[in-house]
């Protein structure tokens, strides 16, 4: 169980009543699994709709005439190029180009944005953004919201039955369907789905309606992790750290070409130099041979036994039907199909570099 100093979800009573088993994550007491168990929860999300309480993550509203220049400084982003309602994956970078956090930024107005930050980094992100904001006419305001995700092929239908129409909202678009609501078509599972930030009272109503729908099941953090890993999505603190830059993390696609070339964001010079040099190590998918999972921290070796990198996330992929992992390997080895080896309790497990994702993304793009 978790210590007394951990933070508690506003809807904790609902999770407890649903039979959740709690555990500590990023300073929060979080539902890890419900009685269905991680395997069923994972598969249910891919087949129907999974409901996740992600209120440990933080929503910030960034607004004012200085919103564009602030975001363009803090992130390798052209915030002004985003259309209204458009969402984008971006990063807070340090001067060395290292990833302080990965964020989803959504433009809601000419100079109004919603930023979604990771739980473990939220306080540091806020401090960082506020320090930078001092030079601009801009407000950085953390929002007091319950944050829910509903993911899976039947997520839209379940929301529709609960009175929320999602039809015109496409993948990586966000809107404000009701007062103090923020809803985006995005997620962390590789499936079609939505993330909704809303006041607690509204959240209790919405959860009650969704739970009447047999297509909807509560999903804990354990399945959230196996779903995102199969989908090849990174977890900050494991797959991304302040010591990794977007080039090593194979996330340069998230940085627009003109921003790469001439952006003046924090870390721009270091990142351009890193791209020029080429990263020494690169993030790749890893498919262990056989059934034995290879987990975070495992050392990787090439065929000759030389150190080749390490695993940053690993477990079993219930939909893939085999162990799945990702990690960093020497750039020369970062080609799908390359056979390397992972050290698991002294044994060398054969592992093949694999393309990501392990399960195809099924986003609703049009």
């Amino acid at each position: 169980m978790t210590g007394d100093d951990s933070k508690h979800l506003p809807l904790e009573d609902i999770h407890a009543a649903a039979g959740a088993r709690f555990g500590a994550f990023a300073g929060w007491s979080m539902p890890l699994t419900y009685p269905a168990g991680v395997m069923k929860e994972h598969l249910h999300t891919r087949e129907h709709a999974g409901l996740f309480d992600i209120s440990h993550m933080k929503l910030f509203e960034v607004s004012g005439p200085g919103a564009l220049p602030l975001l363009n400084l803090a992130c390798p982003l052209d915030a002004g190029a985003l259309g209204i309602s458009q969402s984008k994956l971006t990063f807070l970078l340090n001067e060395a180009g290292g990833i302080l956090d990965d964020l989803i930024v959504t433009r809601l107005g000419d100079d109004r944005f919603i930023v979604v930050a990771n739980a473990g980094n939220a306080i540091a992100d806020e401090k960082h953004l506020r320090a930078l904001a001092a030079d601009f006419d801009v407000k950085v305001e953390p929002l007091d919201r319950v944050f829910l995700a509903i993911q899976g092929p039947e997520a839209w239908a379940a929301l529709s039955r609960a009175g929320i129409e999602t039809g015109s909202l496409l993948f990586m678009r966000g809107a404000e369907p009701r007062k103090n609501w923020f809803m985006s078509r995005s997620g962390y599972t590789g499936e079609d789905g939505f993330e909704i930030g809303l006041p607690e009272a509204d959240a209790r109503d919405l959860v009650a309606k969704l739970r009447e729908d047999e297509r909807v099941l509560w999903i804990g953090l354990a399945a959230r992790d196996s779903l995102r890993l199969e989908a090849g999505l990174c977890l900050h603190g494991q797959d991304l750290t302040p010591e990794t830059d977007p080039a090593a993390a194979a996330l340069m696609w998230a940085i627009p070409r003109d921003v790469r070339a001439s952006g003046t964001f924090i870390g721009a010079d270091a990142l351009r130099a890193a791209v020029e040099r080429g990263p020494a190590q690169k993030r790749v998918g890893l498919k262990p041979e056989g059934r034995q999972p290879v987990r975070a921290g495992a050392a990787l070796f090439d065929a000759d036994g030389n150190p080749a990198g390490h695993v940053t996330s690993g477990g079993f992929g219930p939909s893939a039907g085999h162990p799945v992992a990702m990690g960093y390997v020497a750039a020369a080895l970062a080609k799908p199909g390359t056979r390397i080896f992972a050290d698991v309790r002294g044994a060398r497990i054969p592992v093949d570099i694999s393309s990501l994702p392990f399960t195809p993304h099924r986003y609703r793009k049009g």
Partner: protein
Amino acid sequence: MATTYFTSDHEWLRVEGGIATVGITDYAQEQLGDLVFVELPETGKKLTKGDTAVVVESVKAASDVYAPVDGEITEANSTLSSDPSLVNSAATGAGWLWKMKLADEGQLAGLMDEAAYKAHIA
């Protein structure tokens, strides 16, 4: 007649004729969640109480299962290589982990009976 013993690490031992069949309890499998891999020991391996005998892996994590007493592995449950979920569905039956020849039956005196184990997890 076989006698069943329990440990505070949530293992059970069914002892008959100097051989103990060892598994984890239903309580333990519930705590671990869905198992996806069991690393089995080799026959003939000698274990001292407290040594890691088996590693059970759930979707999320790997957990050690310790030898509850001294002895020598006589058999591992090879069915678990293809179906580790047996440990979840039949923890105290078909989901047994290994059999061991006891080195010192006197060590059994330090273990719990079922009533004591039930009180331990209550």
